[in-house]
């Protein structure tokens, strides 16, 4: 049994720790505060405490558990709310009340609940790691596939059907003279990526329901994206929108060092909202991690890895998973805090020099894969991370390191947010390298996509260039054609890109509706150009009732949009574009 030799914030040095291993979990003091060994020196272990160390004394006990930081994987994950170490927060409320007590324990998976297991493998079948041997209907939306844990191989000697807890054996696998018991639950060390058969390129659109993402800067299944932005620019709202509406099978939301009230809001809303394609409660396809800013700093570091491990586990079942992390900056700060205590040589702005590689070890776990085992299946894990640059200055180290790793960047702009243009994703500085990866998808669903998108981006680019001239000569001094361009750019910004997360209808927009909306604006542009050429003044175009009608497209429900927009087009084409019907 070891004992505390030194305490300095979250850093603890324990003596008498011979036989321990790096990354082993220890329990400290009489409360059993959880810590993780991050270094060994002769008899001493350097420990990062995942809980508050206030009031600890030298000489208190430090007990090794022989385990390394692992996630519990099995039925019961979906719909749960965990802290950064995968303790069930709901269980903690039951056990210790509204406040989190140090050292309190709670399993990730309920131990008493019985799950209905239906085997798909039979006695005698040869199996190995990753093979699906049966299923559990975990929620109405998620069929939990029970997989043979990696490393196990042999023939099934016995397999049961019926109701089991996660700890009861459901099958036995025999290899030579060795027999392995399989349960509904398995464990996986969180810092180690889970294995797969083959890595594939991200492909196919991850439909988010957000027009500026789906249409302008698309995200592919298995991709990685970052969303940097100053405070109040809409990172959290956007990330919550993603996990709300993304057309994936399961989403994971990691609140890492952020606000408690935000977590409460997201948790409560998910108990009420329905998934647009299945009509079921969103809670049935979500996992939450809530390690808020006032919870222990070091556990933030773990929270990201716990989340990504759960994501990979469901990916391995052959599902498409989206994981969002808000905010990766708080995660990096947790590393800086530990680094400082260890008196490591600091890198830029005090961050440890390994911050960049730690960030990429997280984002690299995104991807589309051929899963391990049979039957053959593809799964994907897509990651988006919020970044909170100090002073909204993107040149700082966390933002810069992240930009180097990700392939889609949603740059949130303070001046857009101040004008209440939401989502405040800048169309001038954001990009997606997945345009080719989603081309097939769009070709099948909306062949005009590539072209329409290009026209819109060009108009917005031209607007930005004209803006400088406007500031010098005023908007009235521009030639008519430029005035029209400014009008259309404004329509693209306000009537297409702007999308309120709180609007009953507009909160989720199908790609089909998005395409039609933008095409309507572009068609309006073409018709107006013709009219300008035939002598109609810009004033008449500006005050055309079409401008108003186009601005109301957002209110039209997804389901009836196509029909209603057809009427609008007819009206436009008939030349009603000019006020009071007067075509020249």
């Amino acid at each position, binding site marked *: 049994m070891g004992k505390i030799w030194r305490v300095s914030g979250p850093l603890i040095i324990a003596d008498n720790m011979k036989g321990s291993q790096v990354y082993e979990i220890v329990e400290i003091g009489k409360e059993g505060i959880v810590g993780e060994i991050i270094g060994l020196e002769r008899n001493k272990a350097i420990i990062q405490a995942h809980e508050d160390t206030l009031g600890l004394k030298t000489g208190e006990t430090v007990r090794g558990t022989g385990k390394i930081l692992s996630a519990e994987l099995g039925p019961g994950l979906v719909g749960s709310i965990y802290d950064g170490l995968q303790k069930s927060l709901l269980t903690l409320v039951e056990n210790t009340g*509204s406040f989190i007590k140090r050292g309190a324990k709670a399993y990730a998976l309920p131990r008493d609940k019985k799950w209905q297991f239906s085997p798909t493998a039979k006695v005698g079948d040869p199996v190995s790691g990753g093979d699906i041997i049966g299923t559990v209907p975990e929620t109405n939306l998620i069929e939990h596939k029970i997989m043979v844990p990696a490393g196990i191989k042999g023939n099934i000697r016995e397999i049961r059907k019926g109701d089991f807890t996660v700890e009861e054996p459901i099958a036995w696998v025999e290899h030579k003279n060795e027999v392995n018991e399989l349960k509904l639950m398995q464990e996986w060390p969180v810092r180690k990526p889970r294995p797969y058969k083959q890595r594939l390129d991200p492909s196919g659109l991850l439909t988010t329901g957000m027009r500026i993402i789906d249409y302008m800067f698309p995200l592919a299944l298995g991709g990685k994206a970052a969303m940097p932005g100053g405070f*109040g620019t809409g990172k959290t709202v956007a990330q919550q929108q993603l996990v709300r509406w993304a057309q994936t099978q399961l989403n994971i939301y990691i609140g890492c060092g952020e606000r408690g009230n935000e977590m409460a809001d997201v948790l409560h809303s998910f108990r009420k909202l329905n998934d647009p394609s299945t009509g079921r409660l969103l809670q049935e396809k979500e996992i939450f991690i809530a390690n808020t800013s006032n919870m222990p700093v070091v556990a933030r570091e773990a929270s990201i890895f716990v989340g990504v491990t759960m994501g990979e586990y469901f990916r391995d079942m052959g599902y498409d998973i989206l994981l969002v992390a808000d905010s990766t900056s708080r995660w990096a700060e947790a590393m800086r805090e530990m680094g400082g205590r260890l008196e490591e040589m600091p890198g830029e702005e*005090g961050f440890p020099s390994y911050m960049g590689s730690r960030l990429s070890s997280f984002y690299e776990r995104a991807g589309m894969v051929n899963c391990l085992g049979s039957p053959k299946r593809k799964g994907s894990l897509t990651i988006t991370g919020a970044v909170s640059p100090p002073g909204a200055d993107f040149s700082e180290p966390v933002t810069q390191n992240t930009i180097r790793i990700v392939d889609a960047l949603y740059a949130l702009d303070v001046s857009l947010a101040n004008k209440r243009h939401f989502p405040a994703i800048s169309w001038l500085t954001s990009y997606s390298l997945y345009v080719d990866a989603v081309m097939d998808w769009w070709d099948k669903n909306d062949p005009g996509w590539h072209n329409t998108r290009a026209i819109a981006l060009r108009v917005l680019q031209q607007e930005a260039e004209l803006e400088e001239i406007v500031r010098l000569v005023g908007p*009235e001094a521009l030639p008519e054609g430029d005035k029209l361009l400014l009008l259309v750019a404004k329509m693209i910004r306000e009537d297409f890109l702007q999308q309120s997360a709180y609007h009953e209808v507009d909160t989720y927009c199908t790609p089909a509706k998005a395409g039609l909306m933008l095409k309507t604006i572009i068609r309006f542009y073409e018709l107006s150009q013709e009219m300008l050429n035939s002598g109609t003044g810009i004033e008449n175009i500006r005050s055309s009732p079409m401008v108003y009608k186009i601005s109301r497209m957002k209110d039209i429900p997804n389901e009836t949009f196509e029909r209603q927009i057809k009427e609008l087009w007819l009206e436009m084409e008939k030349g009603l574009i000019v006020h009071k019907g007067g075509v020249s």
Partner: protein
Amino acid sequence: MNISSLYIKEGRAINRAKGSLLIAESIPGIKFNEIVDVQLSNGEIKSGQAIDISEEATVVQVFGGVSGVDLIGSKIRCKGETLKLPVSTDILGRIFNGMGDSIDGAPPIVPDGYLDINGQPINPASRQPPAEFIETGISAIDGLNALVRGQKLPIFSGSGLPHNRIAAQIIRQATVKSKKEEKFALVFGAIGISYDDASFFIRNLERTGALDRTIAFINTASDPVIERISTPRLALTAAEYLAWEQDMHVLVILTDMTNYCEALRELSSMREEIPSRRGYPGYMYTDLATMYERAGRIMGKKGSLTIMPILTMPDDDITHPIPDLTGYITEGQIVLSRNLERKGIYPPIDVFLSLSRMMKEGIGPDKTREDHNNAFMQSYAAYAEGCYLREISTIIGAEALGERDKIYLTNADKFESEFIAQGELEKRSVEGTLDIAWSLFSVLPEEDLKLISEKFIKKYLPKYSKKQT
């Protein structure tokens, strides 16, 4: 604070004194972060905190510096306790210093218990999302940046701007529409502010008769810097006691949090920690968050805890680490503008930089009024357009603008003088605030009111609503 005058351990051999740090031989039984007394050989006692403990050495940070510590005669005495606040319902109406000792001359509290001033994190799964609108009677807040119970909403100010007057007006006017009988309390934490500013608040509370439901913790500019670290924590601990154990709705005002952050920087640099931006410690975000996150509502509990910190932005710079990190923690911010102040507008609230993130939960039918959200968005859009045109017209002249643009330009001026500006003693109802917004919409082209649903236009736009009545 006299929790125990019983010292349990006494260490001697102080080996080294450096800056504010004393490095002594290991003191067995000392707890990490506990508050200790350092007795100098001349008998003077200073307080300190054990910031690093090991079998080899104990590092104590002495508050107020180590001058006068001689290595031979000085002693470190520990009490085996971290800082605690004695609580009972009698603390209402009392005034304390930054160590929790009463300074109002009244008899000491007979405590029901002692609470650790660091509190414990609220389990996110037991939080109730804040949703009750607090009417402050100030249009720029109620109309555009509504405050709700359980929110943390700071005022970002600059030196010389009227943040104290605005805070006092909020304290005077804040009410909640509710049928239930409810108990309110105010906790006031003064951190490193001038004596005059502190007494401005106390007098204000006295005048409105609010003092007997207030607890004040006062650390003025001349009080020890270290107590700036404990003052807001004491205030929040008292507030938690009232909110969670006494079912009260508590508003906490902390001013000036810039002084708190300066104190944090000072202590950190004495500890020779690796600084982050502009010398502030890397953990400042977490440190501030552990305090501000104490705001909220809890399922199954009747009370609520709302925090309104006030801070002055050094050089009026919102990207300075103090307002920046605060903005990353709080649920929005009310930002004061020197420009509006120069124009003579009170309250000089910059509505573009200001934001209330909990607003959407707190407004709407049954809470404020059905058209609130639409009117709020349209007001922003119109004012933003007007301000943009104002900027352009400084170069090209207002005459060069088109007719429509001129309307927006005038509208922006009227928005500032009629909607934002109001009297210091004027309490506007939220309906009154929304009606002003509608009267301003009435001069805009109707087809421009894109952000308002048609049914509200028909109901509230003066030209239609007048016809109905």
